[in-house]
C-alpha cells in the first residue's frame, strides 16, 4: 500500500501518513461498530431491545456516546501520579493501533508487508501490558492495582498458548508473513487451514482435527488476551469495580475502550488469517468470474471484515453467555490445559507437515 501511494503521490511523508491513517480509521470504526454491536447483541440475547432512540434502532448511539465522552470533564484525582496516569491510555491505544499495521485486509490493503508480521503482532501486544500496568499503578487505587496485576499476568500467560499455536501454523505454512499466509489459502473454503490447507492429499484430512483443536486453543487464549468474559477478571465489575481503569473518565476512559474493541477485531483478524483463509473469499471471486480483476481487492476487504466481525460476534456471544473464571482457575486453565494441548498439537502438526 505504501508503495502504491508513494508512486501515486511521489512523497514519502504523505505516503507514510496515508498508510498509517488507514489502520487508525480501522481501529476507530472497529470500536464504533463494536460498541454498538455489543449493545445490540447483548440486548437481544437478554430479550431486551438495547439502544433504540438515536437514529434507526439506535444506530448512532456510539456516535452520541463519543460526543458525550468528548464533552466530559477530565476529572483527575489529586492522588494519582499525573505523568503516568496521562500516558497510560496513550500507550494502551498505541499498542492496539500498532497491531493493525500488519493485518492484511486484502492483498492490496496492508500497512506493511513485513516478513515478521505475525511475530510483530504478538510482540506489540506487550505494549498494552505495560500500559495497563502503568494505568493500574498510577491510579493509586487498590482495585486498579489488583486489576492491572491480574491483567498483566493474564496477558503474559496466555501469550504462550497463542504463540505455540501460531508456531504450529508457522511451521505448517513456512512463513511469518500474514499476507503470505492468506495468499496460501487460496479462494474457496476447502483450501482454508482449518480444513487442512490448500494442498490436497492424505495429510489434508489428517490435519483437520488438529487444526480445529489449534483453532479452539488460539481462540480461547486470544479471548483472554483481550480481557473478554469469561476471562475479564481484570475488569470484573463485581469484584474490582472496573479494574485498571476505575479511576479514568471521559476521553481517557474512551481510549481504553477504543483499544479494547480495536483489539477484539485484531485478534479476530489473526484467527481469520491463521485458520479461515484471511481475506480469501470462501466461494471464489465474483471479479474473476466476470473478468473485472480490479474488483478482487474490494471483495477481499469485504470478506476479511465479514469474517473478522463474525469472530467478534462470537466473542460477544460468549461474553453474554458465560460467567467469569477466578484468577487462579484462569491460570490453571492456561498452564494445565491450553499449553499441554497446544504442545501436543504442535508436535502432531509438525510431524504431519514433515511427512
Amino acid at each position, binding site marked *: 500500500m505504501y508503495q502504491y501511494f508513494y508512486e501515486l503521490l511521489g512523497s514519502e511523508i504523505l505516503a507514510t501518513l496515508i498508510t498509517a491513517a488507514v489502520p487508525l480509521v480501522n481501529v476507530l470504526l472497529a470500536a464504533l461498530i463494536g460498541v454498538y454491536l455489543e449493545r445490540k447483541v447483548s440486548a437481544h440475547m437478554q430479550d431486551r431491545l438495547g439502544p433504540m432512540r438515536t437514529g434507526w434502532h439506535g444506530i448512532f448511539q456510539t456516535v452520541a456516546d463519543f460526543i458525550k465522552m468528548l464533552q466530559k470533564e477530565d476529572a483527575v484525582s489529586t492522588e494519582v*501520579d499525573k505523568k*503516568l496516569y496521562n500516558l497510560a491510555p496513550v500507550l494502551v491505544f498505541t499498542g492496539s493501533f500498532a497491531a493493525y499495521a500488519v493485518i492484511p485486509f486484502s492483498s492490496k490493503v496492508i500497512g506493511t508487508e*513485513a516478513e*515478521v508480521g505475525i*511475530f510483530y503482532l504478538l*510482540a506489540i501486544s*506487550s505494549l498494552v501490558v505495560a500500559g495497563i500496568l502503568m494505568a493500574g499503578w498510577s491510579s493509586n487505587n487498590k482495585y486498579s492495582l489488583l486489576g492491572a*496485576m491480574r491483567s498483566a499476568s493474564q496477558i503474559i500467560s496466555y501469550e504462550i498458548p497463542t504463540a505455540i499455536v501460531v508456531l504450529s501454523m508457522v511451521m505448517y505454512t513456512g512463513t511469518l508473513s500474514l499476507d503470505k499466509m492468506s495468499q496460501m489459502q487460496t479462494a474457496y473454503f476447502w483450501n482454508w487451514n482449518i480444513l487442512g490447507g490448500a494442498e490436497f492429499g492424505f495429510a489434508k484430512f489428517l490435519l483437520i482435527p488438529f487444526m480445529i483443536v489449534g483453532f479452539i486453543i488460539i481462540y480461547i487464549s486470544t479471548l483472554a488476551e483481550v480481557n473478554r468474559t469469561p476471562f475479564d477478571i481484570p475488569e470484573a465489575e463485581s469484584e474490582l469495580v472496573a479494574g485498571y481503569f476505575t479511576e479514568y473518565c471521559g476521553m481517557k476512559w474512551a481510549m481504553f475502550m477504543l483499544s479494547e474493541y480495536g483489539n477484539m477485531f485484531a485478534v479476530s483478524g489473526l484467527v481469520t488469517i491463521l485458520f479461515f483463509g484471511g481475506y480469501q473469499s470462501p466461494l471464489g471471486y465474483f471479479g474473476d468470474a466476470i473478468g473485472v480483476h480490479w474488483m478482487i481487492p474490494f471483495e477481499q476487504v469485504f470478506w476479511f471484515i465479514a469474517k473478522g466481525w463474525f469472530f467478534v460476534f462470537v466473542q460477544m456471544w460468549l461474553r453474554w453467555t458465560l460467567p467469569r473464571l477466578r484468577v487462579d482457575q484462569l491460570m490453571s486453565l492456561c498452564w494445565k490445559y491450553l499449553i499441554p494441548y497446544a504442545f501436543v498439537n504442535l508436535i502432531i502438526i509438525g510431524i504431519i507437515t514433515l511427512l
Partner: protein
Amino acid sequence: MDFYNIIFFLFALITIVSAFIVVTSRNIIYSGFSLLFTFFGVAGIYVLLGSDFIAVVQIMVYVGGILILILFGVMLTNKIVDVEIRTGASHMLPAAIGVGILFGALTAVMVFTGWKSEPGLVPQTTTVDIGKLLITDYVLIFELLAMLLLVALIGAATIARREKE
C-alpha cells in the same frame, strides 16, 4: 534531510532521553517505565538497520518479559516506591576518568574502523538466515542456552515452592 534520517534521529532521541531518565530518576517506577521507551528506541533502530527479526525479539523479550517482570517486582513491594534512591553523584573524579577512557576507546574504534558501506541495500528479511544458523552452526550454544534456561526455571520453581510450605 532524508526521511529515514529523521526517523533515525527520532528513535535515537527517544533512546537517549529515556535512558537518561532511567539513570537519573529518583522514582523507581519512572525508571522502569522509561526503560520501556529505551527498549522501543533500540528496537526502532534495529528496524532501520534492516534486522526486523531482532527488533521484534527485542520488543518481545525485553518489553514483554523482562520489563514487565521488573515492574511486577517493583509494584508488589509497595514500600519501594517511597524510598529515595540515591542517584546523586559521588566519587566524581574516578568515575570521570573511567568513563573518559571508555568513551575515548569507543570513539577511537568508531573513527578508525573501516566501515563497509553498501549504498542502496534493500532490507531483506533475516528470519530464515537466523533460523538456519541457529540450527546448524550454533546448534550447540542454542541447545546449551535452552538447557540453562530450563535449569533456571526449575530452580526458581523449587525455591518458590519451598517458600510456601
